[in-house]
């Protein structure tokens, strides 16, 4: 992270901003995809995030917090899309375990593993946006509690509590699959 680059971007330097976000787009898209599970929504979330980052960047006082700050904006964008999706989509897509299992198995893994993974994903799909986000940040991105706390603007203890609650929610949701 180059603080000078961020400061230049804060002044409206488009070239600096472009350089700042260039390497982040794909990781952001994958994070959004993991949270949302829908490719078009993931791209929308990242588009919204970059637009917000550009708009709000001049107000960021602590440039060292850019990563946490921009990730928070991404999580918020995902949250909004998920909330909206819940409102707007009235049809539920069911996953054909046999078909999906075949497809995933063709890429590797036993049938049991595939079925378990699908069940786990369906359980994940039932979680609220915050729970999804914290699980993705921790398990997919490998972020520690201190980083997660910075992203959500909460205390480390609270982050620990939320991560625990998200795990429990996932377990409870998975029980419905058994």
């Amino acid at each position, binding site marked *: 992270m180059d603080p000078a680059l961020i400061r230049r971007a804060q002044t*409206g330097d*488009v*070239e600096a*901003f*472009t*350089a700042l976000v*260039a390497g982040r*787009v*794909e990781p952001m*898209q*994958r*994070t959004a*995809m*993991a949270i949302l*599970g829908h*490719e*078009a929504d*993931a*791209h*929308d979330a*990242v*588009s*919204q995030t*970059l*637009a*917000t980052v*550009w*708009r709000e960047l001049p107000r960021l006082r602590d440039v060292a917090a850019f990563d946490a700050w921009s990730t928070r904006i991404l999580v918020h964008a995902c*949250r*909004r*899309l998920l*909330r*909206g999706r*819940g*409102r*707007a989509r009235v049809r539920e897509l069911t996953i054909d375990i046999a078909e999906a299992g075949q497809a995933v198995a063709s890429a590797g893994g036993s049938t049991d593993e595939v079925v378990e*993974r699908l069940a*786990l*994903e369906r359980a*994940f799909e*039932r979680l*609220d*946006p*915050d729970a999804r986000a914290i*699980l*993705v940040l921790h*398990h*997919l991105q490998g972020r520690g509690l201190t980083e997660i706390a910075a992203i959500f*603007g*909460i*205390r480390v203890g*609270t982050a620990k*509590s*939320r991560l625990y609650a998200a795990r429990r929610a*996932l*377990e409870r949701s*998975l029980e*419905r*699959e*058994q």
Partner: protein
Amino acid sequence: MSDAPARPPSDDAIRAMLTERAGRLTPQPLDVTGAFAEALRGSRQERRVWRLWPALTAGASLAALVAVALVAVILPSRVPTASSPPSAGPSVVSPASAAPLATPVVLSPGQLLEAVSASADGLVGRLVPLRGALASVIHSCPPRPVGASPCNGLTPYISDVTGGIRVRVTDAVIHGSESAGSPESQIWIVRVTNGREADGLVVELIGGLKQGPDGGLTFTVAQLLANHDESRVGSLVAVDGWLVRTPLHSCPSISSSGARYGCPSDVYLTDTEFQPLRADGSSLGPTAGIYLPADAYEQWAPEPAPFSTGGVVPQRAVYLLRAMPTTCSVGTACQSFRQAEVLGRLDPLSDLVASPEPSDAQTVAEIIAASANGPFAFADGRQLIVHGWLVRTPQLPLCRPAPESPYGCDQLDYVTDLPFQPWSSTATSVSARGPDVGLRVQNGAYDAFAPDPRQDSDGAYIPREGTYVVRGVIRSGCETLPQPEGSVAPCAGPAVLFWEIVERR
């Protein structure tokens, strides 16, 4: 399903599932139109967004062209004037790519509804790129007068999370366009009409737009000529190019059906500002261009203007084309060009797409008083601005929330007129309560929108003052109640008005 006891997922299993889930995404260049449209919603920063737009479009390597782009936005495109002498031969004045055109913004259905509402009838007849999913809802057909259009019991509409717009599908128009009826979100071209039906605006669906090779809205002529797949007959494409026309010439004796192209003049779309008129009065076609009907210039050039003797000033715009079978009229040399017809221009709507300001800021008490007539008073999607204090309770683990409800009882978020603390704790107990006058907003609103969300030393969240944009949502009242163990079904109950914070000002 299995009768085996539930096994908690391991960290590795969760990681594997998330990795595979994330891996299903195909990384794409930034969706610039979506980002731009989204950024435009923050009208205060519009100038900043304009500066971002060209760089996002072109990528980092073209950031240096931003200054050029800014000039292009501010200044009109350079065209030869009528007083300029014609060049000695066919001339390429400047490459179109050097000065990006202010391209149209792809709107969401919600944005289009807002734009139409704000512009009265100013948008009627305009072609608009609209992103959403095309679907149909089944309805009953009311008795219709004799002669009325038939009712097939299906209402097509384009929608996304921002709303839905009813569309009128004209078979003749959409014929040949791919993806009609696709449940997936894509870009559609619609023509705004002044039609209204009981459930609001109706637009005419022109068809699904093929996106440019870089995921953008437009093609260049060269890209189309190089890509046979995109030029299949019936395909709709938006082309950023120059519309040029040769002087009128005599027509051979041909059937009227063959005279559409090349008679009494040749009209092309080119990537460069091309003037086919030569000093000796003759004309020559471009080396690469798309062949258009002879009346295309007069019909679609933004500002048709004569140039010297018999010529016209090339006119740049984003033209909506439909690929046509390549049939040439007698005596014209169109074999080297693909043919298309012009369906219209996609002019920028930047002056119209800024979301109308919802309203002046109101107090919570004012909003509650205005909603006293029933829960549906604010359920039309309108947005309100409220100035107040946002607060939440800590997680309330003893309350089992309704599944998938953003208003579950495991957390309570409110906006109030005065600082309010919904959570209290003593050495032996904790309790939560709602305000006497407050808006119940979605769980997580405090964390998402409060400025500097923070807990005090007792774990209570500190109310944060701010100006928030909210909209009403109708939910089941039972969502706020503790749910019985094992309950998985959405709970049923009376309709209740909740609120959703969508933005902090």
